[in-house]
């Protein structure tokens, strides 16, 4: 009999790191499948397939990069790749990328995220930044032009909730926010994710379900995620109430954008977050404050990604902050957590106080003249554009004088799109710019010529604009859009 020696204890839990990563991968794959189905059904099977292909490209990049790296370093490739968990980075990176990012950009970003984001630091367990967030930051900063144009046109013609709110400076009055949320199918729509966004970021319910599953399997720690969500909710509630955006503002802040995905899949990455529970709570509060500050004040569409990257940088400092015996130094540690959190929250609150809520598409103050004009509906106000299936969305409302709408309406063959700028006070069209022309080339485009479009300038809802001869259907779609925008601006 051989009596081996191993240091005590010789008894171990059944949970393994690989098991944790497999659970995580399972959830991520579930979200990929959901997204493929959603895009496939809503925008056609080709785009559903694109979700799958993008995932495969990213996975190929992560496996390929790691295999090559370990081969060059002379390690046992299969063992190291299986214990480096690069595919999780690939999956997360795919899910936080927009569908119109080119395969090429995604491939490069994944490879760079794996090498620069992880391997050069010493591999799994040593990296400072969340590799997936690192990769996405790379895509946003270096590949913003590398897009599949047709996908952009098909899927991202309208604004995402993030872009829509961002264009309003992330602070709207209660009614304006209500309109915006209704534009995406209300809270139900936001929860189900029936709008285009990053690939994996839309279905809040599915993400929460995955979070619950991971908590049940004890794969992630609840302290961080729950603290983060509570902080985002409370901070935006307080600021929202003071600024008149109301309760919905807090709910919108939590369920829109990358908040849920980020907190379930990225902030719970133990490698780049503090080790102790007090540390994680400080991290969560910091992340929440930065998310809101970036939403409010940066020109990024969402703040979650960079809040994670910024807090990753201070993780070692947070670890140092709460070091020590967690029982004997409990009072000091609690004090440190409270003071740090309070300072961070106060700073974020201060930033929130500088915001100006944007009113619900302000009605032009009617003057005596226009009142007589509008008393009798005339011109476009009397026309029936129902066949054009017209829809408009507020694109920008920051300028005090201008109000920009993004509209679409059916022409002859397809749906044309235009950006329409209105003069708020006068209730007139300042300019109309066709962003997507889908009718017959050489026929319908007569109506979109610059001199034809110039005829819209200064038009009110009661103006009559004649159709361009030979391009009646296209003209009709343009006039429908103009009328719709003018009607919306008038609050009708």
């Amino acid at each position, binding site marked *: 009999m051989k009596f081996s020696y191993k240091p005590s204890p010789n008894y171990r839990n059944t949970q393994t790191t690989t098991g944790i990563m497999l659970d995580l991968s399972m959830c991520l794959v579930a979200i990929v499948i959901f997204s493929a189905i959603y895009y496939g059904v809503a925008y056609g099977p080709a785009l559903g397939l694109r979700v799958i292909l993008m995932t495969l490209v990213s996975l190929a990049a992560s496996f390929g990069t790691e295999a090559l790296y370990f081969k060059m370093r002379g390690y046992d490739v299969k063992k190291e790749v299986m214990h480096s968990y690069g595919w999780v980075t690939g999956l997360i990176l795919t899910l936080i990328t927009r569908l119109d990012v080119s395969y090429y950009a995604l491939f490069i970003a994944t490879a760079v995220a794996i090498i620069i984001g992880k391997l050069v630091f010493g591999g799994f367990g040593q990296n400072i930044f969340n590799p997936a967030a690192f990769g996405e930051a790379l895509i946003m900063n270096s590949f913003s032009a590398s897009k599949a144009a047709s996908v952009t046109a098909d899927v991202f013609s309208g604004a995402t909730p993030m872009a829509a709110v961002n264009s309003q400076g992330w602070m709207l009055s209660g009614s304006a926010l209500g309109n915006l949320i209704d534009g995406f199918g209300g809270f139900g729509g936001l929860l189900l994710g029936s709008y285009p966004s990053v690939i994996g970021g839309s279905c809040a319910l599915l993400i929460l379900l995955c979070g619950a599953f991971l908590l049940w399997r004890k794969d992630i720690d609840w302290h961080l995620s729950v603290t983060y969500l509570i902080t985002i909710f409370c901070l935006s509630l307080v600021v929202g109430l003071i600024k008149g955006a109301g309760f919905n503002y807090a709910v919108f802040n939590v369920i829109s954008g990358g908040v849920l995905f980020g907190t379930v899949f990225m902030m719970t990455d133990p490698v780049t977050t503090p080790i102790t529970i007090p540390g994680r709570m400080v991290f969560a509060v910091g992340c929440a404050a930065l998310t809101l500050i970036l939403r409010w004040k940066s020109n990024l569409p969402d703040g979650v990604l960079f809040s994670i990257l910024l807090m990753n940088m201070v993780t070692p400092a947070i670890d140092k902050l709460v070091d*020590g015996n967690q029982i004997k130094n409990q009072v000091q540690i609690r004090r440190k957590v409270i003071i740090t959190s309070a300072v961070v929250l106060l700073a974020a609150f201060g930033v929130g106080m500088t915001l100006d809520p944007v009113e619900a598409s302000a009605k032009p103050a009617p003057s005596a003249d226009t009142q007589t004009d509008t008393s009798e509906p005339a011109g476009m106000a009397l026309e029936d554009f129902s066949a054009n299936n017209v829809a408009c969305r507020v694109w920008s409302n920051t300028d005090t004088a201008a109000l920009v709408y993004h509209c679409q309406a059916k022409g002859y063959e397809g749906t044309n799109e235009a950006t329409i700028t209105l003069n708020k006070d006068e209730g007139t069209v300042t300019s109309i710019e066709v962003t997507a022309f889908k009718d017959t080339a050489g026929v319908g485009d007569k109506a979109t010529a610059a001199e034809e479009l110039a005829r819209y300038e200064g038009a009110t809802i009661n103006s009559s604009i004649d159709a361009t001869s030979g391009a009646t259907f296209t003209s009709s779609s343009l006039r429908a859009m103009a009328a719709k925008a003018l009607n919306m601006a008038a609050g009708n």
Partner: protein
Amino acid sequence: MSILTGPMNHHLEGHKDLTKHENVLKTIDPDKVYIPLMNGNAPCKPLVSIGDEVKVGTKIAERNDHFYLPVFSPVSGTVTGTEKFMTSSMSQAEHLVITNDHKHEKVRAFEPFDYEKAEWQEVLDFVKNAGMLGLGGAGFPTYVKYLNPQNVELFIVNAVECEPYLTADYKNIEENIDLLKTGTLALFKLSKAAKGCVAIKEDKTEQIAALQKTFAGTPIEIRTVPDLYPMGWERTLVYQLTKKRYDKLPIEAGCILNNASTAIALGNAIENGMPITHKYVTVSGDALNHPQNVLVPVGTKASEIIDAVGGYKEGTEDVLLIAGGPMMGKTIPNDKFVIAAPNNGLTVLINRPKDEVKCLRCGRCTETCPSGLQPVRIQMSNAIFDEEELMKLSLMDCIECGMCTWICPSKIDVTENVRRAKNFVRTRMASRAKEAKK
């Protein structure tokens, strides 16, 4: 426990059913016993010489430095020499060899004693002279705890037995519940405590009922504690029962604790006049044919016990032989060591390879550490020999309970790394003390 700390304990799969309902094997009567002349780190002086006849209960050695501890012969026979080999705590020690004549002749080590009528001082002297020591594993002389009991609120008999696989205390209580009562009441008197209790895990329902029946009408309560590890550790148990923490000794929180086996041994000394000669030892693990408890003379070799219970499973070639349970017991690289008085288990596990991966900093070790430490931070600071940071992490509070290694999903030997860090700091401190002397 607060929201900022983790649970600081965890439920472990106990594997106690392997031995809990098996009979205790009492027929082991080795030809030779080897009594370690060592208590803790202090040597014991032999009081007999080679060729002397001894009987069961003859005083054969004593520790007599700042503590006093007599050692008694567990068998009758002849002293045939001393041998030096590895003990169950992996240090080298002299062992007094007694050749057993299998006659089981006894001498009454002490006169009958009525602790109820005796003065407090007399009880203390009895405990001291009877050689009572902590049988939970520490082997600390029992009387020392009771030298100056002031403001003791709670006297606790620890029958938790949280170590996986071990059921020795359970079987001991099952068979000697009246001795437990005697010993507990004597110690309770000694502690001058306001209240007394027997703490036991809530899942041992049958034994709880038996204890409640036995202790009915006495001031001793039966308190149940959840089935968590390390619930049997003094600090965790005191916190569970009183919600108080203490710095060094439980007396600071108004508590005195003793193991149930110790109370039973004292009961035996009071009622039968016999010292600690035999030990209940759990022999269990997945490498054995018939895991069961045994009652053996102190000084029996591990190899003899394993042979007596039926040996290793067919086809087992590589095992971990652990003196104690798998969490805190040390793996001994041979089977020649003997059962000393504080030992209560032999766990034999098949040596399986483990698949260690890199630390993912999940922090689960910090959440389950019953001492409130951050084993992973200690491990990292030790890797760069940062002594200052190690002291800030108060690594000397580690009791090596093994929780951090148990919970680690990456299968890293976290406890061992903390142990190394402790050794590193100790070495540094010692060399500095040396420098200072020069």
